[in-house]
């Protein structure tokens, strides 16, 4: 079966996010004054073959732990959907 994992990686709360701050400042100068905070993260879409849903889920989690995020500063979440041809 084929699956699409949609992974979002963000900085943990309290970790300094210079990109987010800079983007917020830019939005302010563009007169989006109502913006209070911006957090910058990563989005990854992973297409993989797996026997079943729970196997796919397990593998996506392993990828996140080992490579896609750094547990010291980042956390992640994901959604999984089956790809039907």
């Amino acid at each position, binding site marked *: 079966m084929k699956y699409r994992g949609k992974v979002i990686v963000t*900085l943990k709360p*309290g*970790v*300094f*996010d*210079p990109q987010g701050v*800079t983007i917020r*400042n830019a939005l302010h100068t563009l007169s989006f004054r109502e913006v209070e905070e911006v957090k910058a993260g990563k989005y990854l879409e992973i297409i993989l073959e797996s026997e079943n849903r729970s196997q796919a889920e397990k593998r996506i989690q392993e990828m996140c732990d080992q*490579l896609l995020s*750094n547990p*010291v*500063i980042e956390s992640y979440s994901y959604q999984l959907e089956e790809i039907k041809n």
Partner: protein
Amino acid sequence: MEVANGLNVARELGLKEEEYERILAILGRVPTPTEIAMFSVEWSEHCGYLHSRRWLELLPREGEFSPLRGEDAGGIVYDDLAVVFKMESHNHPSQVEPRQGAATGIGGVIRDILGSGARPIACLDSLHFGPREDERSLYVFRGVVEGVAFYGNCVGVPTVAGELYFYPAFRGNCLINVMCLGIAPREKLTQAKAQGEGNYIVYVGNKTGRDGIGGCSILASQEFGAEERRPSVQIGDPLAEKCLIEATLEALDTGHIVGIKDMGAAGLTCSTSEMAASGGSGVEIDLDLVPLREEGMEPWEIMMSESQERMLLCVRRGYEEEIIQIFRKWGLEGEVIGEVKDTGRVTIKWRGEVVADIPALELTRPPVYTPPRERPLYLDEVNNFSLEDVSPPLNYEEVLLRMVSSENLSSRRPIFEQYDHMAGINTVLLPGSGTVVLRVKGKKWGIAVTSDCNPLYCYLSPREGAKMAVAEAARNLSACGARPAGVTDCLNFGSPEKPDRYWQFVEAVEGLSEACRFFGIPVVSGNVSFYNENPEGAIFPTPTIGMVGIIEEVEKVVSAGFGEDDLILVLLGETKEELGGSEYLRIIHNREEGPPPRVDLEGEKNLQELLITLAEEEIVSSAIDLSEGGLALALVESSVTEENPRGVIVDLECLGDMREDVLLFGESGGRALVSVKGELLNSLQRLAQEQNVPCQVIGKTGGEKLVIKKGGKSLISLSVEELKNRWEGGLGE
């Protein structure tokens, strides 16, 4: 505000019972939590040099070039300029979070240079990792290189040189030593002092958050073991650093800055106490004025925070607004947070209350320890190698190909190409083989920089290894025509509380000191990183040397590559029957054994003088020093380092009847390979004789092959194109 169980808190923060007693005596009362925190960071190994201070006094501070010693970064004076440089470690943070660890390492050392009032113009990175087969080591290695590239490129200070080695001993504890070099008109240098009652203490840069709290005393001085603490990692913001560089230099130009200090390890604690202590005054700080990024921060958190991209200034009263506006123009924070007092004390207020009040001098006078040390037993075991133990290879071509493509000897191009090594348009001799040379705009002279240390030698003999690191660095510089002028060092060792590790440390410092003294090169700055251990033991002892040289006429710089055909190849220096500690033994025979090559300081010095003269008198067409991989690797590098590789024909017969593998791959020091035009050979030989340097003609350049024979016997005949591909592809990155 007192703590009932002050001793427990102190212990938790890494202070010893006797240290706590001393704090009680200094204050004449029970310390507040903020005070305990402040003492704990100032008296940590990382900031206070408890175990190393006594030995660092051995290092020579004077030399041929007049040294300059500031607070953070030392340097030398040449012409009317100060050349300031300093090396720092960022090992533990990088092991935990490679990308940010390396990035903030670069950021930190740049601020050290900036704090002296100099404009940072170049960085170097000396990197050591576990083998790349090891998944975690590979991850750390790639993350670190990415971090240096990310931060260094963005901040606009070129990373021009460095080192990269892989040894199993660095598994679980990598070494990230970064160096920065800056220049300033000599009279523009600024000190890290607060002076003049009523002058203002001004905070500039990024806001303060909870980053790296405890990172300094807890993270940096704790071995990586079973119970791992989750550190709060610092995140680098190179854009802010870039703006901080420009704003700080602009502010210094106003002439209204009395003193300046970067906020690195131990942040506000370190900067306030050291500025007060070295200015012979006191400071009073109001923490409610510190720009904060997070809510609910405790006073001790603010004092210990290691948020990056911050500096502390002492500004002449009446000019604070002008200075603050400069920083705000660059999009940074700028706030008056306190003033200079003549109390001699660091007084910290928070919400109207005094939360700390300590004599500044006492904070900056941590205890000194010299625990027992003992020669480790492994030394006898690993220093028994004799030539009979290995049989010479049958196929030298195969051996050479394996060596040129090995992870420690292959080209570093895949690494330094990820670094913007040309930013600032000063890099005259680009990285590739050996030394990198920077011009100084508007001057005839230039600056050469290199970093060196062979950790395996140091493991086999800390003293000889340290001497060799100095010798190799100096040889590197002189090969391109530069005169060694100053050293900065970064001493990476295991736990000083273990006698065998401490012995290694003291031996290395003595070796380092002896070599620098002999060559007349002052040690102007440096850094010590202890507790580099993983569950399997300590790292190889690694006293990394950063050396800076001056080349009088930068246009005469000599590069390593063979520039044309029909040049005569000359080997300078003596080849001894030494294979111990060599990469050849490691790679081909799988033995990490010694003794390592012995250092002949006299011979090294003669060679250096000769190389400098050869460059100045424009006699040689190329020069490269011999180091890891010996003569064979030097030949390959000079052949293939240029865009178009060039062949050579070499005969080893004249080098005596030693074994061929010794002649090719032995790593005896004090040697260099130069190429010279036929008509200049005589002058070269005459100068070599005058300098007492052995000198042998071993071949000439030309053709498309690297051919090495010994008398009638052909050892190697390989296409230089193939060698180039193997060498450049060795890292597989």
